[in-house]
């Protein structure tokens, strides 16, 4: 029974990684860049929820909504100010380094405003959860909410991308920006929309992450950000279901190895799996291989 508990916890952590990984993978798929500041958008979202909840001392829903809106604006602004001017740059490294710069900038701004001490975050999920099998299996409310939210997000995103013209424009732009522009698609606007969605998801992931692991510091987003990136690569970067699968695999492996092997080794095991998967299948679990025609 305890195995089941760990598995469910792993599923929940994996769902959070998956939501973050969706942001990575969508931005990579469409803008062909890695937004290393993505993890820090999560941290910004958490601080916004933390501050709003402290100010209003009540319903966390308002805090989450404000965090979603502000994180979306942050994503759009970052893209417009820092990434867009570099899109035509000679080397793709320029935008990559800029993203790392944005990451440190956000961390240090948070450090200035909130200080280095760890804040205790009040869970946004008030529900206690459920107890099954005569108290043998207890699942926390935040665990269930996390899993449900991630499923809703995945389905919603798939519907948006496959059933709406904005989603189709994203797919078209991800394949061939030049041809999309010549068909009248506004590629810049499409990339901006992608950043908006990714950043909104980061805010949601932040709320769930800090509810499950209630300590908040300026570096809260860094490690989950890296792990979500690993999840995106593991699942096949650019693929939305891949991000989901990669996130879940990572979360489950992390929790199970923490429990049954060693809590100190769990990160090493997680990254070790990444290395092995990439050696066997360099494009990730669901990644497609494109052969360039010469």
């Amino acid at each position, binding site marked *: 029974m305890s195995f089941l508990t760990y598995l469910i916890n792993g599923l929940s952590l994996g769902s959070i990684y998956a939501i973050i990984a969706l942001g990575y993978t969508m931005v990579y798929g469409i803008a062909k860049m890695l937004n290393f500041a993505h993890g820090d958008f999560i941290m910004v979202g958490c601080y916004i929820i933390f501050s709003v909840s402290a100010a209003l001392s009540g319903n966390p829903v308002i805090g989450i909504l404000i965090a979603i809106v502000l994180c979306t604006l942050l994503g759009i602004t970052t893209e417009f100010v820092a990434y867009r001017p570099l899109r035509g740059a000679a080397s793709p490294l320029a935008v990559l380094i800029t993203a790392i710069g944005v990451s440190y900038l956000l961390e240090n701004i948070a450090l200035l405003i909130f200080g280095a001490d760890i804040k205790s975050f009040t869970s946004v999920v008030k529900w206690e959860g459920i107890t099954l099998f005569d108290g043998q299996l207890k699942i926390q409310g935040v665990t269930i909410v996390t899993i449900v939210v991630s499923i809703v997000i995945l389905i919603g995103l798939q519907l948006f991308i496959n*059933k709406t013209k904005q989603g189709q424009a994203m797919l078209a732009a991800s394949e061939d920006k030049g041809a999309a522009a*010549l*068909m009248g*698609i506004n590629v810049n606007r499409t990339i901006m929309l992608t950043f908006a969605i990714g950043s909104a998801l980061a805010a949601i992931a932040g709320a769930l992450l800090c509810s499950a692991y209630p300590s908040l510091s300026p570096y809260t987003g860094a490690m989950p950000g890296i792990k979500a990136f690993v999840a995106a690569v593991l699942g096949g970067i650019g693929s939305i279901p891949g991000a989901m699968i990669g996130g879940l695999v990572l979360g489950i492996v992390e929790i199970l190895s923490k429990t049954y092997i060693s809590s100190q080794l769990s990160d090493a095991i997680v990254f070790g799996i990444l290395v092995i998967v990439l050696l066997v299948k360099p494009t990730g679990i669901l990644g497609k291989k494109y052969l360039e025609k010469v």
Partner: protein
Amino acid sequence: MALLEVNNLSISFGGLRAVGDFNLKIEKGELYGLIGPNGAGKTTVFNLLTGVYKPDEGIIKLDGQDITRKNTIEINHAGIARTFQNIRLFKQLSVIDNVKVGLSERIKYSLFESIFHIGSYRAKEKEMEEEALRLLKVFDLDGEKDILASNLPYGKQRKLEIARAMATNPKLLLLDEPAAGMNPNETKELMDTIALVRREFDMTILLIEHDMKLVSGICEKLTVLNFGRVLCQGETKEVLADPEVIKAYLG
């Protein structure tokens, strides 16, 4: 007034003048051919017309409107659509979705409506579906509407590229070597498709081509480029009989 009027168009890459003093006048409804040896600058002219490159000098007017320094999106909205020498379909999208991408700037609904599937979302999606199907029917692709574009046979991919371009509702259609890599049967079918586009949509077409049989068979007027300069311009028959042109082609 001519539909497309190009005056003294020039562009250089480094020290190389890829296109110089290029002039072109296409009347509405014409089928115009742009020919020339490899490296003569034909595709460069297309890239200048569609805003992929910005010219160093010269003016491009479409239907009286100056489009010289507009970007590709604005030029598409102004009414120029094109296909590519190496087919550039959205391979991971289905046949009908490729056409829908072309339609998406014509049939509009807001992001808010598409996220929540409310308002005009359903009606506009239906309109888009119907319009896309209508176009596919014209090109006889409606039977394959749900398969991936990459799984179409070569000749049909060319057709789909034309259908996708037509979906943006252009005034002028640019075809970059539509017969490249085709066997004689496919070329014949392509000629029928081009004739169909003219008949069905009353379309003005500018095409680049190497296949002389295709050019002499369907083009009314020709411009011959050589080393980025206009060598000869006029009615197809006269141009093809011009000794300069024969020299450029046969060396």
